[in-house]
C-alpha cells in the first residue's frame, strides 16, 4: 500500500512538471497569445504561479487530493466531473477489448505452442508482427470502410442507435445496465455498436498476448513433470489443459495489467474513429480547443487507474502461484 502511494506521488510529480514547468508559462497557455499583461498577471496570481515552484507543487497536490483536476477551458466546468461522465463508456469499451484480446490471445498462443512450427504457429507469428505494425487509427478507418460502408453489417459510430433510449443508468456500462433492467432492445444495439471498436482496440494487444502465452507454454512443456506425465501415458490434450496451461498462464496475468494501460492509450484513437463518447474522444476534442487542463486531467486519471490495476495484479500473483510469497 505504501508503495502505491509513493508511485502515485511520483505520478503527480511528473504531471506537475508537465503541466507547470514544461510549458514555461501556464497562464499564457490558458489565455492565449493575445491576452494583455494585466489579465495575465492576475491569472498568474490566482493560479499561484508567482509562488516558488515547490509551493506550487504542494498546492497542486492538495488540489489533486480533493479531486481538483482544474477547470476545462472549453466548457468552464470542473475537469473531473467532465471526465467522470465519459468514464463508463471508456471502461466498457476497454473491458470488452480486454476480454476479446485475452480470450483469443490465450487461445491462439495455446494452439501455436501445441502445434509448434506448423502453419498455425507461423500464422500467429505473422499476426503478431502485423499487430505491432498496424497504425490503430488507420485500421479503425479501414474497418469502418469495409464493415460499415461497403457491407453495412455493423454500426460505425456511437454506443446506441439514435432512436433507442439508453438503459436506465446503474453502472453506466450500457451492456450491463440493459441486462440489469431487462432492456433487450438496448442490449442488442449496444452489443452491435461495441463489435467494431472492440475488435480494433483488442487486435493490437491480441498478438502480444498470444506470443507470450506461446513462449511460456513451450517453456512449461519442456519441464520434467510434463515429460513424466507423458511417459505415464496421460493423453496429450489432458497434459496441456491440466498440467501445462495453469502454469503457463501465470506470466500472462502480469501482461494483462500492462495490456490495460495500452488499451486505455489505444482508446484515445478507437473512440475518436468510432465517435465513441468516452474519455479518449474527449481528450482528442480537447486538443483542438487547446484545453490543457482537460488533457492533463485525463493523463492523471489514466495513470492512476493504470498504477492501481498493476498493483492489484501484483497482489493476485501470489494467490495464483503458491511458489511466490507475496
Amino acid at each position: 500500500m505504501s508503495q502505491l502511494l509513493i508511485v502515485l506521488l511520483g505520478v503527480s510529480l511528473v504531471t506537475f512538471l508537465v503541466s507547470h514547468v514544461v510549458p514555461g508559462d501556464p497562464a499564457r497557455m490558458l489565455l492565449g497569445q493575445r491576452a494583455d499583461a494585466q489579465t495575465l498577471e492576475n491569472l498568474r496570481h490566482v493560479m499561484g504561479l508567482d509562488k516558488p515552484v515547490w509551493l506550487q507543487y504542494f498546492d497542486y497536490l492538495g488540489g489533486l487530493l480533493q479531486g481538483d483536476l482544474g477547470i476545462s477551458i472549453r466548457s468552464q466546468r470542473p475537469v473531473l466531473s467532465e471526465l467522470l461522465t465519459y468514464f463508463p463508456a471508456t471502461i466498457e469499451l476497454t473491458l470488452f477489448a480486454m476480454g476479446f484480446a485475452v480470450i483469443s490471445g490465450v487461445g491462439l498462443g495455446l494452439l501455436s505452442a501445441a502445434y509448434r512450427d506448423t502453419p498455425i504457429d507461423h500464422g500467429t507469428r505473422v499476426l503478431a508482427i502485423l499487430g505491432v505494425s498496424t497504425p490503430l487509427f488507420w485500421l479503425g478507418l479501414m474497418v469502418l470502410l469495409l464493415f460499415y460502408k461497403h457491407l453495412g453489417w455493423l454500426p460505425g459510430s456511437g454506443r446506441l442507435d439514435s432512436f433507442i433510449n439508453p438503459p436506465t443508468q446503474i453502472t453506466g456500462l450500457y451492456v450491463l445496465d440493459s441486462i440489469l433492467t431487462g432492456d433487450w432492445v438496448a442490449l442488442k444495439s449496444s452489443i452491435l455498436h461495441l463489435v467494431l471498436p472492440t475488435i480494433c482496440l483488442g487486435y493490437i494487444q491480441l498478438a502480444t498476448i498470444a506470443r507470450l502465452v506461446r513462449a511460456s507454454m513451450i517453456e512449461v512443456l519442456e519441464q520434467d513433470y510434463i515429460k513424466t506425465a507423458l511417459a505415464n501415458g496421460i493423453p496429450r490434450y489432458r497434459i496441456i489443459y491440466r498440467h501445462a496451461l495453469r502454469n503457463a498462464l501465470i506470466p500472462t496475468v502480469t501482461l494483462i495489467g500492462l495490456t490495460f494501460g495500452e488499451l486505455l492509450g489505444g482508446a484515445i484513437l478507437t473512440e475518436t474513429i468510432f465517435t465513441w463518447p468516452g474519455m479518449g474522444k474527449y481528450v482528442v476534442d480537447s486538443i483542438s480547443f487547446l484545453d490543457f487542463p482537460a488533457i492533463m486531467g485525463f493523463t492523471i486519471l489514466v495513470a492512476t487507474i493504470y498504477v492501481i490495476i498493476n498493483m492489484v495484479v501484483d497482489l493476485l500473483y501470489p494467490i495464483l502461484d503458491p511458489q511466490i510469497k507475496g
Partner: protein
Amino acid sequence: MAQFRYLRYFTKRYPLTVTGAVIIFLVVMVSLAAPLVSPHNPYTLNLTDRLKPPGSIYLLGTDELGRDILSRIIYGARLSLLAGVGIVGIAGLFGIVIGSVSGLLGGKVDQAVMRLMDIMLAFPSLVLALALSAALGANFRNSILAIAIVKIPVYVRLVRGQALSIKERQFVKAAQTFGAPKVWIISRHIIPNCLAPVVVQATLGIGEAILIAATLSFIGLGAQPPAAEWGAMVSMGRIYLLDQWWYASFPGIAIFITVIGFNLFGDGVRDMLDPRFRN
C-alpha cells in the same frame, strides 16, 4: 560471385529479415530521391483537380486541395524516417549517458534515477507522449522530443543493467586502481561495451517510434498543415473517408509497410545477435 552466393544463402536462411531490410532500403531510397521520383509537387494546390480518384494522372488520387497523394506520400517518407531515427537517437543518447552514470555511481543517485524511470513507465506511453507534446506545443519537432523523452527509461534501464555488470569486470577494476577518472571509465569502458544491446533495442524501436509519431500527428499534436506527413494525411482523409476512400487509405498503407520493414529487420537483428532468441 562468392558474395552473391552468400547473399542467396542469407536470403534463404533469414527471409523475413531480408524482406525487412529491402523495405527499409526502398523507403530510404524513395525519401532521398523524392524530388526525382515524385510525379507532382507535393505542395502545389490544384483546385480544379480536387479529390480526384486514383487514375492515370494521379496514381493514388488527390486530396481536398488537389495535391497529388502519391507525391505527398513520397515526401512524407522523409518526415517519418526522421521521426523514427530522431526519436530512438535522442532517447538512446540520453539513455546511454544517464544509464551509464547511474550504473557506475550506484548508491543514492542510482536509486533516485531508477525511481524516476519507474514512475515514467507508470504512464501508458501514448498518454504521456500526448500530454508532453501538448505541453511543449503542437508541432512536429516537439512531438519527436516528447516521444523521445517518454522512451528514455527503456534505454536507461538497459544501459544501467549493462553498466552494473561491466563495472565489476577486471579491466574496469584495473583502470580504477590506476586512478582513472569516472568520465574516462564511462566514455572508454562502459559506453563502448554496452553499445551492442542499445543498437538492437534502437533498431527494434524505430518502427514503434514511427507509429507513435504518426499517431500524434493524427490527433493533431505532431506535424501541422501543410506538411506532407502520413499521420496528418490520414487525419485529413478521415473527413472524406466514406466517399473518397483513397485519401485516408494510402498514407496509412505507407505507415504500415514502413513499420513492418523496421519490425522485421529489428527482430532479425536481435535474433542474430542474441542466441537466446534463436528459433
